[in-house]
């Protein structure tokens, strides 16, 4: 058994090493082509933005090392996109400089790929972002990219994922195949930051167990299409989980008058191999959108299911004005142990769009735990000014948080953020 296992591992490793080599070779060739083709018939488009952000926390921090001072930061996105004779080349980098947290000061290549269309098939090699799903309160079926969790806890920012992706267009829908040769471990905020998951800081190291490794070749398959008023998607993923299910506690034994005591020093995120099947559907009828996403995942302890579903109703031209008011209600269920965020939570939200030339918008949302009524409130207002600028004001409030709720470690992290962004 052990020998077989070893042989299998060797074979897998061989396959992965050669896939990785091929990936690098293709990617470098593509990059070389990109630069050489810049001289050929091609069309390039560059854009960038830079932003300043100030965040003020209104409550005293929960953990010793966390800062009470305002958190200031600068962030920027640079994009380059080229249509050439040799295909399309795209590049996008995101970077942030943070006044409080070294880990939040980070740079990530969100996109760096070559893409070419061959009749009914699109081929993409490189780093990219992929989005699946329909729901607003949680992106449950979306699994290709790892959440960039140092950015924010809302799961709307993702790390670039290296991939080879084939999209096949048929009369009955789109079939996408993904080979994902590297795992991107989720980054966690440092010990001085707010939004820490535990009193003990999370280590920058990742631990891979049960056959998982950083260079394990993960695979994904997706089918998506629309039938009349229905938009549907089905997906399957095999590979290294994008989010750690557990943390290994590391620490040292300290001698106390009462005898030796284990003192935890850091948490190491643990990644394992998972299989996940996902379904998503949306029914669009006039002013109502009905949405549902569901997954079944095995590999992280007991096999479990999770779902998010609900509706979005829009009142167009509210009271004969140009404004639209959207109302969202979604229910989240997660069958993991009860210590999971969104295990049994109701999300209600509203979106007010002015539909003016400045694209003024207000979003307000609340997650309420159906069992203990722990509530997370969030509001976001944004507006364009002087054409090249946008300003946004965000506020987050944790109310009535139950001590046993996993969200309790964020309970002191109420904030108000003002950010101003300039687009080139």
């Amino acid at each position: 058994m052990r020998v077989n296992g070893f042989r299998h591992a060797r074979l897998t490793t061989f396959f992965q090493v050669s896939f990785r080599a091929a990936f690098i070779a293709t990617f470098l060739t593509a990059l070389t082509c990109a630069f050489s083709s810049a001289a050929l018939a091609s069309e390039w488009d560059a854009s960038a933005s830079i932003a300043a952000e100030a965040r003020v926390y209104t409550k005293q921090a929960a953990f010793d090392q966390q800062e009470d001072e305002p958190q200031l930061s600068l962030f920027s996105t640079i994009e380059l996109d080229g249509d050439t004779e040799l295909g399309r080349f795209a590049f996008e980098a995101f970077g942030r400089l943070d006044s409080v947290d070294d880990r939040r000061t980070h740079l990530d290549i969100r996109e760096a790929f070559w893409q070419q269309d061959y009749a009914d098939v699109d081929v993409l090699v490189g780093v990219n972002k992929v989005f699946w799903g329909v729901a607003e309160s949680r992106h449950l079926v979306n699994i290709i990219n790892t959440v960039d969790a140092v950015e924010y806890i809302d799961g709307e920012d993702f790390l670039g994922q290296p991939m080879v992706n084939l999209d096949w267009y048929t009369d009955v829908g789109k079939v996408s195949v993904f080979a994902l040769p590297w795992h991107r471990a989720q980054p966690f905020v440092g010990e001085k930051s707010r939004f820490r998951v535990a009193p003990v800081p999370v280590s920058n190291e990742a631990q891979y167990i049960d056959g998982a490794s950083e260079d394990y070749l993960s695979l994904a398959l997706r089918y998506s299409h629309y039938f009349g008023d229905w938009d549907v998607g089905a997906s399957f993923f095999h590979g290294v989980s994008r989010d750690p299910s557990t943390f290994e506690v590391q620490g040292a034994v300290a001698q106390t008058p009462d005898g030796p005591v284990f003192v935890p020093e850091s948490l190491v995120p643990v990644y394992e191999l998972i299989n996940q099947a996902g379904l998503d559907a949306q029914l669009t009828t006039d002013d109502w959108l009905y949405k549902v996403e569901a997954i079944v995942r095995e590999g992280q302890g007991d096999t479990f299911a999770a779902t998010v579903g609900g509706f979005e109703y829009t009142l167009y031209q509210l009271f004969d004005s140009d404004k639209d008011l959207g109302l969202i209600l979604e229910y989240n269920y997660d069958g993991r142990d009860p210590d999971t965020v969104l295990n049994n939570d109701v999300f209600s939200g509203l979106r007010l769009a002015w539909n003016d030339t400045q694209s003024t918008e207000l979003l307000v949302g609340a997650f309420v735990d159906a069992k203990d009524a722990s509530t997370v409130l969030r509001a976001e207002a944004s507006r364009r000014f002087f054409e090249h600028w946008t300003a946004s004001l965000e506020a987050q409030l944790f109310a009535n948080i139950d001590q046993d709720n996993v969200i309790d470690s964020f309970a002191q992290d109420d904030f108000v953020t003002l950010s101003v962004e300039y687009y080139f």
Partner: protein
Amino acid sequence: MKILITAALVATLSLTSMSASAQSTEQRGFEIAQQNSESNEGFGSTQVDLTMILRNKAGNEVARELTIQTLDHKAPGEGDKSLTTFNSPKDVEGTSMLTHIKIEDSDDQWLYLPKLKRVKRISSSNKSGPFMGSEFAFEDFASFELDKFTYKYIGDDTVDGLAVYVVERYPTYGKSGYVRQVTYIDTKDVQTRKVDYYDRKNALLKTLTLKDYRLYGEFWRAHTLEMVNHQTGKSTVMSYGEYDFEPGLTEGDFEKGKLSNAR
């Protein structure tokens, strides 16, 4: 008796002629609209860049840049397909909207948000809402489909020295912001020169003037469209660049699945 019969006959005759003329104004209106629609039949596909200038009551202006790709419907009873991409303002650059126009049903519409790379099916029932903060409603901006209206010929007139037919049209699709639209279609090339839009209270809301018509092969395209809102004093000018009638677009370029792979 004879007099009575004559009176009855006259009454019958006038009724007949009245209904005949009522039928003919509707028929005439439809035929003019049909001629106008047929002049654009079989254009294949087009691509055009345009600048939209939004002007408020005080005269302050902001500009928006768009690219529109359009695919002509294949068979009668089908609608056109269009892909509108926003090139400015910069914070929404790359956002695009795909529309499959349906004659019988409500249109299929998807929005592509490049920041998240998310494709979102949206409701197309928002006909009368403003398009990008402009004076054009979504329904004004959609490509014209003959069977989405009923018609009535009103008479003849002149617009900018051109002889025109005046044809009223009444939206048959739900959620329109208009009770009627008065179109002015020139008698020579049968192109729309002006449209007056009447809101749900039958008050004059907006006037669209279409100018700078140019001929591409057998197809006419207006290059300056100005919409003036009489009730707010705001206006929007859409200034079109040169049309490309051979952009090499196919059905596949207007598929939902292609949106996330588009530039």
